[in-house]
């Protein structure tokens, strides 16, 4: 009798799925717990990833908007000041820089106010020539500022370090917390799935013994249980995806409506819906397959 490709046979796949579904309902509560924990794990993982992605987007906006200003020593003539451009451009992390004369700066300053009479009489000489500098990486802002200050002729540097650092701290923290929580929950989810499968295997041990006596290989016996674990994992993943979607949209609406949080850039969910679904499904699949394999390997040894 042929023994190859027994997994590809449609009738076998049907049998494996049928057994898996039967088992899932046989231990409904355990299955529910397994799906629930997997779902919670993915939701937490997903939420932190989304927060972190949005903070990243906000950071790149800040990179675009945030300008570091390098003031030039007053004793430098305009010619001398302009000559510093090469030195500044030579620094790492400087994407572009634009020279602004003290007169231009004055104009821009005055134009901010409706009533320009107050400042109209102030001579431009109280201001300094300056460079407006865009950085490549906001993360490197601090060291770039130090390097800028070291350039001869640069009197002072103004940068909004705190905002950038605050965002980066939150983002990094979100990443770390997400990883720790995700790993913990993954372990819990693995444990629960594995116990659900083990219970199912135990209930059906007589059947397993019969099939083994007929000459089934371990892989044939393992398949329905792995299918069960994978189904549990995937169901958890799909439910988690839809919940994530709903919650994200609620939060997004709240942020865009709010006045204080306008600073945040919110990416629409559909921009990464596909990726999130794929990751959820892969994690669900992996947790289900690994959890059930662990359970069944232990079971088959006995």
């Amino acid at each position: 009798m042929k023994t190859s490709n027994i997994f590809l046979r449609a009738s076998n796949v049907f049998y494996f799925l049928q057994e898996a579904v039967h088992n899932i309902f046989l231990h409904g509560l355990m299955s529910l717990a397994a799906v629930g924990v997997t779902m919670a794990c993915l939701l937490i993982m997903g939420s932190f990833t989304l927060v972190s992605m949005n903070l990243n987007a906000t950071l790149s906006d800040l990179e675009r908007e945030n300008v570091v200003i390098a003031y030039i020593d007053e004793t430098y003539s305009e010619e001398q000041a302009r000559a510093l451009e090469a030195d500044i451009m030579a620094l790492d992390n400087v994407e572009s820089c634009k020279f602004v004369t003290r007169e231009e700066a004055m104009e821009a300053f005055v134009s901010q106010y409706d009533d320009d009479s107050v400042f109209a009489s102030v001579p431009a000489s109280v201001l300094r020539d300056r460079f407006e500098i865009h950085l490549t990486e906001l993360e490197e802002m601090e060291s770039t500022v130090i390097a800028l200050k070291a350039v001869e002729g640069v009197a002072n540097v103004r940068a909004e370090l705190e905002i950038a650092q605050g965002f980066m701290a939150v983002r990094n923290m979100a990443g770390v917390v997400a990883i720790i929580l995700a790993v913990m929950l993954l372990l819990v989810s693995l444990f629960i799935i594995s116990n659900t499968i083990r219970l199912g295997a135990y209930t059906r041990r007589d059947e397993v013994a019969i099939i083994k006596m007929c000459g089934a290989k371990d892989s044939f016996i393992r398949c329905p249980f792995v299918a069960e674990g994978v189904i549990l994992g995937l169901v958890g993943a799909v439910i988690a995806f839809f919940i994530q979607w709903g919650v994200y949209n609620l939060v997004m609406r709240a942020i865009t409506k709010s006045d204080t949080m306008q600073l945040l850039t919110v990416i629409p969910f559909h921009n990464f819906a596909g990726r999130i679904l794929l990751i959820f499904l892969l994690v669900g699949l992996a947790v289900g397959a690994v959890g059930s394999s662990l359970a069944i390997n232990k079971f088959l040894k006995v």
Partner: protein
Amino acid sequence: MVRLTDVYKVYENGARALKGINFQIDDGEFVFLVGPSGSGKSTIIKLLTAEIPPTEGRVMVNGYNLGTITPRQVPYLRRTIGVVFQDFRLIEKKTVYENLALAMRAVGASSQEIKKRVPAMLELVELDRKMNRHPSELSGGEQQRVAIARALVNNPGMIIADEPTGNLDPARSYDLMRLLERINELGTTILVVTHEKELVNRFSKRVLAIENGRIISDGMDGYYRYYENK
């Protein structure tokens, strides 16, 4: 072919179940293995199906040495043997047809092979009209015939039955032995474990008698002589 040479079995708790067993069963034979309860009959069956390893000695079954067989090879060994138990061991939630189909699927048979083979086997045991019933809807004798059909479905060269008539009345027991006899006539080697003297004596077959872990007689009238001389 089955050959046991100086086989000993000591269970983990120290029970010495077999104490130097020697016998050979050639292809196509019909053999009764008889002996009182606790004499070691089931232990021999478990050795032959690689459920337990021998403690000492050599056990050869259809070309496999069961002292050195690897876990990977065990399924292939088992495909050369059909096993029947006293308690039938059918899967209750599946129909008669599905019980047989599963046994075939487990060894990689295709749907077409299953569709052809299962009805043929059920016809052989005269249960083709009940193939959509569940085991609980059948009598003990019928259930045991299903078990025999399942043992045969993958076309093994040999059937091993451990007290197959233990749960049947004498008339059904006799019918079942006749069925096994017919299967033997079709070319399958048969080894039947039983302690029912009357039943054994109604057939003139080779009888291996075991007591207290030792073979005490082996011959066409072995069981009979053993009891007469006692």
